[in-house]
């Protein structure tokens, strides 16, 4: 039998296929949580800190729940609609508005879930919910409200739409290329959705029932379904991982703010008790002012790590506390990614799992390679107080944490300084999109806080990693990531991260393109490269294959819930 591109030698010298014998997929999933993560305790007030805004009941009822705190359900469904007759569409919105899940709904559930999980000591919590959110394109706002209101949105990228920005994001311009916008399943020219509906559930039967319920209203309200996509968390030990097999969504910003006037009722629970509690909610999770994600809230000060700055005002009044939503349907070519890793690993004399982890910056379990550089450590990968705690440029110091019954503390090796990118290379995906403490091409460390996005994506398609002897039919099925992010500026956050950092060999630090999601096109060539650490002169490795391919999406605005019934639906 011909050798597969992903065949590699294991430590015993045997030839094995890395995908079929994926280490993390062969481990039993942890059945118990190791510590009491939150309970009903949300942290302590930091003395002399600027007071964080209160999201009172009206605000919590208005903000859509996938923005804050995020749905994070294992089963999700995406419905991309084109609106027909506008008065019918408005009637549909009137019907839909009461069903939309608010921050209040989702936050209450999350808090109940965590409290119950802590009492039970298990993630198997008998609570479930089905949620729904909605977002509108600029064109839809023009149709439903007015062209003037659509033009009043200050984010020029939103007004242009994803299809027009596709080339700017590095997507292929060759007409026959799969990733060319003309070939997208949704969102390309002439196929741009007016509305995106996201349904999320803990139970797949509940999800299906809700989707049927919504779809049952299509004819009555003149809605044309352009595309539908089910998302589903990977099964078993790969839950929370993306299709290449790596844990995803580990690093999320912590949104500053409180759910009530109570001084410690933080919407992002706080765990640190030392001086760094001013900047971090839990180790490695920076606190960021909510205006970076919600229009009209106080924003992050560009010159001060801790202070807020004035809110943006460049949007219609009714859009306050809404958020821009970016959706990208990204197909993943698992064989191409691991084939590249296996080939380069053989050439460099590095285990393929390690080389692939250097491309990502984390081991498949989520353990950062800066904390464990020799081999994966699933215990570290599962420890949410430790798996995101590391700096790039300086030695990482332990954080003082408030007592958490059952949590033994972070006893894993701390990350050492890696300012030259010799352990976690400058091209590594997590170093590209989140340079943390490093300075960047935009200068001071704090500028990076202004680039953060709230990621709410989910995998789609059947996994192939960890599947023994996969049938050809399985390989032919599509798999990938429904990337979803929320931000208050598409241009300065999502597009900045993609265009300026992932797609650049020079920025934020010289060392090559992001080998996971980066794209680059210049004068007909789509070659990327990475400078692999190799003494004073790194080894330059060209990348001519692509394993993350854009296949659809759109730029949307997720309005406050009250505006759906009172503005868009009127």
């Amino acid at each position, binding site marked *: 039998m011909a050798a597969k591109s992903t065949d590699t030698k294991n430590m015993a010298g045997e030839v094995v296929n890395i995908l079929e014998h994926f280490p993390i997929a062969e481990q039993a999933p942890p059945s118990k949580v190791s510590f009491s993560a939150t309970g009903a305790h949300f942290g302590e007030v930091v003395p002399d800190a600027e007071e964080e805004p209160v999201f009172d009941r009206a605000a919590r009822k208005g903000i859509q729940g996938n923005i804050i705190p995020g749905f994070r359900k294992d089963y999700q469904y995406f419905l991309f609609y084109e609106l027909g007759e506008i008065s019918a569409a408005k009637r549909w919105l009137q019907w839909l508005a009461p069903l939309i899940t608010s921050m209040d709904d989702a936050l209450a559930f999350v808090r109940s879930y965590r409290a119950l999980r802590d009492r039970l000591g298990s993630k198997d919590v008998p609570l479930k919910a089905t949620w729904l959110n909605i977002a509108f394109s600029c064109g839809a706002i023009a149709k439903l409200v007015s062209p003037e209101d659509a033009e009043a949105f*200050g984010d*020029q*990228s939103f007004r*242009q739409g994803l299809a*027009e*920005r*596709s*080339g*700017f*994001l*590095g997507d292929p*311009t060759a007409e026959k290329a799969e990733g060319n916008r003309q070939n997208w399943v949704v969102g390309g020219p002439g196929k741009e959705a007016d509305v995106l509906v996201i349904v999320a559930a803990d139970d797949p039967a509940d999800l299906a029932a809700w989707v049927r319920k919504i779809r049952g209203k299509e004819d009555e309200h003149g809605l044309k379904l352009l595309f539908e996509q089910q998302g589903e968390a990977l099964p078993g030990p790969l839950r929370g991982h993306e299709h290449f097999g790596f844990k995803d969504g580990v690093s999320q910003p912590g949104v500053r703010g409180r759910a009530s006037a109570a001084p410690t009722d933080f919407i992002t629970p706080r765990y640190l008790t030392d001086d*760094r509690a001013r*900047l971090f909610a839990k180790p490695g999770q920076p606190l960021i002012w909510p205006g970076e994600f919600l229009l009209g809230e106080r924003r992050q000060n*560009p*010159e001060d*790590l801790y202070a807020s700055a004035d809110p*943006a*005002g*460049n949007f219609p009044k009714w859009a306050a506390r809404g958020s821009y939503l970016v959706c990208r349907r990204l197909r993943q070519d698992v064989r191409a990614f691991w084939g590249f890793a296996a080939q380069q690993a053989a050439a460099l004399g590095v285990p393929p799992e390690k080389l692939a982890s250097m491309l990502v910056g984390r081991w498949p379990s989520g353990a950062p390679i800066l904390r464990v550089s020799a081999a994966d450590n699933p215990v570290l990968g599962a420890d949410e107080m430790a798996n995101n705690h590391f*700096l790039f*440029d*300086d*030695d990482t*110091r332990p954080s003082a944490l408030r007592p958490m019954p059952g949590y033994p503390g972070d006893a894993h090796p701390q990350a050492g*300084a890696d*300012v*030259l990118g010799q352990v976690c290379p400058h091209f590594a995906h997590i170093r590209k999109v989140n340079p943390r*403490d*490093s*300075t*960047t*091409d*935009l*200068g*001071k*460390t*704090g*500028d990076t806080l202004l680039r953060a996005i709230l990621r709410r994506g989910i995998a789609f398609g059947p996994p192939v990693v960890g599947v023994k002897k996969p049938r050809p039919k399985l390989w032919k099925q599509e798999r990938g990531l429904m990337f979803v992010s929320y931000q208050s500026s598409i*241009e300065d956050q999502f597009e900045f991260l993609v*265009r300026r950092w992932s*797609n*650049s*060999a*020079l*920025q934020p*630090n*010289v060392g090559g393109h992001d080998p996971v999601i980066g794209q*680059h*096109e*210049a*004068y*007909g060539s789509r070659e990327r490269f990475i400078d692999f650490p190799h003494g*004073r002169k790194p080894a330059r490795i060209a990348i001519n294959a692509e394993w993350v391919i854009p296949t659809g999406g759109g730029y949307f605005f997720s309005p406050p819930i009250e505006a759906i019934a009172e503005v868009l639906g009127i």
Partner: protein
Amino acid sequence: MPLTRFDTPGNLRDAPPGSPFYDAWHRKIDGLIDNGNVGSGGVGEIYNPARKDVDVIAERSLVWMGFPRRVVFDHRDDRPEAFRVADLRTEEDREKQEEYLEWRAIRQDGKITKVTFTTETPEYWKLLFEEEPDTVVCLYRNLVGDPGVVKEDLVDSAGVYDKHNPWNTTRGIVHLNVISPLDNTLDAAVRLAVGSAGLRNPHSLDNYELQENTSQPPTSADPRVTMDGNTLVRRGLSVTLREPVGLYIAGWDDTGWTKPDGSPVGNYWCVVRGRSGAALRVEYEVPKEEGFVVGDIRIGGRPIEFGGQIAEHVTVMIGGIAGTPRP
């Protein structure tokens, strides 16, 4: 490894072989580096490679955005206004272009036809003028494309080279000239790097703390150079600027730039001085045979109306070296 003799930026050979200019330039850079905190000792240091040798372990290029970050945040919610403001020039200088990259856009019938970018420093031109004035006049004529440049145009009333001469302000661009609020000079850039060791603060154990404990201007270049230099020194490394010492255009990204027909642009960049990857002067102009001009190009669907829209995609660099002291 022999001790360094400082060469000209981009290894330029503007002066004839044997000209005293080259010795003068070496002395200039030697003096700039020595005027900082060289030999500050402790856990790490900035060193003068002309006076000390180290075992080099890595090269590091410090890069930053060419468009002024201060202007971006002064107009945080109105990027078109930021572009407009950055392109405005007074009679004296290109005042907003403070990131060691200055540009000049040429327009015809309101449309941009050419944008010239430079990172060349006034010190180089002043010294070259002092040693080889006729050469400077000749270079000016070539660079601004006007044979009418004469020596008298380039000096002040005392006969000293004037970096704000008409051919480097109102009538053309040859090298950096911004003096306010931050100097676009090699002296200032070297001071940032050399002075980075002096930022050492016992309470700054990482860049978060360094940002909090030090005052950094709202630019990209200044904190990039000082904080990065300080980070390397904190690691106990001996750090210096990479030869040939200078400010360079490291690259540009025209992905997603389109012709009027929507197809991707060709390579319209021309490195006039320096080399690709370490350029000193670059021109962006569409060849005549294409049948359109720079102002007809769209960046991500937006027409180019200001030179700053291009500068946003230009990356500036100063090279560094880190090593360990020899026993």
